């Protein structure tokens, strides 16, 4: 599967510590300007793989090639100019200002005593500008927030002017705004500077948006490698992460907690997104419920699928048939309470109106 003309590729790579393999048989490739994301459960070996690619761990087998050359044949000094890292290991920066931390990125380019030229200072300034941390310049690195620290470290990695950027869970400490900003910067680096980026992420929804390629690792081996379109299908993520309680919906990236157990006690008349918050409220209260009648492409559909004990479905873009309606009425008969989440009923939604009427005449407690 590897493309030997790719900027970066591995062939049958095996990584691990001191003869204990952690992940085996990794064959991936990446072009300049592309982002490769590693996803997989905790402890699957993502960091081990990243460390091996960064040259900090000797691979146990196979090859890593960078720009048509075997990584083991590239000198330390050259490696330092080819790739930079942002690791989960804390960077020790006693008494260093943020600017000084970014300046350490210039190390591979400075002389015997590590003094920076005017050019180096310009590159440092630009890197800080790009990541928007210029105002942190004179602050002590130890005294800024985790989120700021992560961005300063990115500036440092950029100042190293790498062709390949390796980041281990870079967004972990960031709030949602900075997560988005951080990944946008990575995209910019890829597009404008033609950098290749390899990173590990825990956020699946972000991974599928930012990645050109994804590598899923599970139980010591590659579970999937491909574009997000190829990776995200039906239940791949559930299998990859072995999700047992709750659910992850691959279509909408929606996460839901575990559905309440038991026979439905409440029937929710929903549709067009009106039911979602009702479903979640019932889930929090631990009340099993049924819902309907939902078109398979309704906004409520994925959440209903995840949380409801029973759902009365009708196929997308098809009218509700008699059989479906009867089924829904039967379900209402079994429940004490009916919650109607709809404010009014549209002209193509007469079945739900009928259910609402039915519930009232059947003497159910009807909440709206």
């Amino acid at each position, binding site marked *: 599967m590897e493309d030997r003309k790719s900027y970066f590729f591995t062939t049958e790579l095996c990584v691990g510590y001191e003869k204990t393999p952690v992940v085996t048989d990794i064959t991936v490739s990446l072009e300049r300007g592309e982002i490769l994301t590693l996803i997989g459960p905790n402890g699957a070996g993502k960091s081990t793989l990243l460390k091996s690619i960064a*040259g900090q761990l000797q691979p146990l087998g196979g090859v890593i090639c960078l720009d048509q050359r075997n990584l083991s044949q590239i000198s*330390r000094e050259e490696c330092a100019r080819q790739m*930079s890292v942002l690791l989960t290991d*804390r960077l020790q920066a006693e008494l260093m200002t943020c600017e000084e931390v970014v300046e350490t990125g210039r190390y591979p380019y400075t002389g015997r005593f590590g003094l920076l030229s005017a050019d180096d200072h310009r590159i440092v300034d630009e890197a800080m500008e790009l990541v928007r941390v210029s105002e942190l310049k004179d602050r002590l690195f130890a005294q800024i927030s985790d989120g700021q620290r992560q961005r300063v470290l990115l500036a440092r990695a950029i100042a190293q002017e790498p062709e390949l950027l390796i980041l281990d869970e870079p967004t972990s400490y960031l709030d949602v705004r900075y997560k988005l900003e951080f990944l946008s910067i990575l995209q910019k680096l890829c597009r404008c500077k033609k950098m290749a980026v390899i990173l590990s992420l825990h956020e699946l929804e972000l991974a599928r948006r930012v990645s050109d390629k994804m590598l899923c690792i599970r139980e010591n081996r590659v579970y999937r490698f491909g574009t997000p379109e190829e990776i995200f299908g039906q239940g791949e993520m559930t299998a990859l992460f072995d999700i047992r309680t709750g659910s992850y919906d691959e279509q909408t990236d929606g996460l839901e907690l575990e559905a309440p157990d038991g026979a439905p006690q409440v029937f929710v008349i929903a549709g067009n997104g009106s039911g979602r918050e009702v479903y979640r409220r019932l889930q929090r209260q631990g009340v099993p419920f049924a819902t309907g009648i939902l078109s398979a492409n309704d906004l409520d559909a994925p959440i209903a699928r995840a949380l409801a004990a029973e759902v009365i479905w009708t196929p997308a873009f098809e009218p509700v048939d008699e059989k479906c309606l009867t089924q829904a009425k039967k379900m209402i008969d079994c429940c004490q309470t009916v919650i109607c989440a709809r404010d009014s009923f549209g002209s193509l939604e007469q079945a739900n109106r009928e259910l609402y009427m039915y519930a009232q005449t059947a003497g159910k407690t009807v909440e709206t």
Partner: protein
Amino acid sequence: MEQRRRTHARQIAAFAALGAGVVVFLLLNIGIGSVSISPAELLACVSGRPVSDTVYGIVWNIRLPRTIVVWILGGALALAGYLLQTFFHNPIAGPFVLGISSGAKLTVSLVMVFLLGNTAGISSALLIVTAFAGAMLVTGFVLLAARRVHQMSMLVVCGVMIGYICSAITDFVVTFADDADIVNLHNWSRGSFSGMAWANLPVMAVVVAVVSVLVFLLAKPMGAYLLGESYAQNLGVNVRALRVWLILLSSVLSACVVAYAGPISFVGIAVPQLIKYLFRSNRPILMIPACFLGGSVFCLLCDLIARTMFAPTELSISTVTAVFGAPVVLWVMMRRRREA
């Protein structure tokens, strides 16, 4: 930019102060004692103009060589401490707490007592080599311990214990040595700058100078190493080789100090810490020369006190360095607790 200029100004001022401190204390150490020597008399002495025989004898044979030795070894000791702190990423590492000084003391006393029977017959170079062997031996043990314990305080405890073992054996050996040796050995094994002569100087000066220059040449990779090993590696530093160099050079420096002056406590820890906060920086390119100067000033001050405070009785140098150094260590530990 403003900030940067202010930091630079501070650092230049700090260097100037340290430089001035060295000069002032050199003069004080030569001048103060049972016989006071004025700077003019000192100048006359050094430039060869006629002075009284007593003054000449005191300056030329006693105080001048001793002061120069303190100047050199004080710097060496502080530098050794800085290297160890860098190596272990541990602010309270130093040749004394890690037992390295005691190891060197042990081998030197063994050689003195068993092989040669007296101190007079031992050449400077042999002393240093012997001390180096002891220092490396203990360093080896400490490194083994460091692999197993990752807590900074535990590592220091290991070092202190190893130091105690070495000191115990040394005491044992000293107890059974010939009477004539004991007086010398006893003073030396507690740490003292007394009795330094010109003959000691050349080898010591050359060794310390060469090692210090080598250390300075390592300033750049040391700076990267301080960020953490994985970052250093990514920046192209040969971490393994650097670690070997740090250990070797710090052991040579510690060995050199022990060979002449015996084990001296706390200088190795306290001085780099003080210098770090004086300069508000931990950049090796500043720290290396600054630690050397700082160590010189610190030891010159301590030796002055040791020599003159209860004259004619002389205190052991470690007594004085501990009084000034131990509070610094406590302060460092407290600070870290607060910051963490």
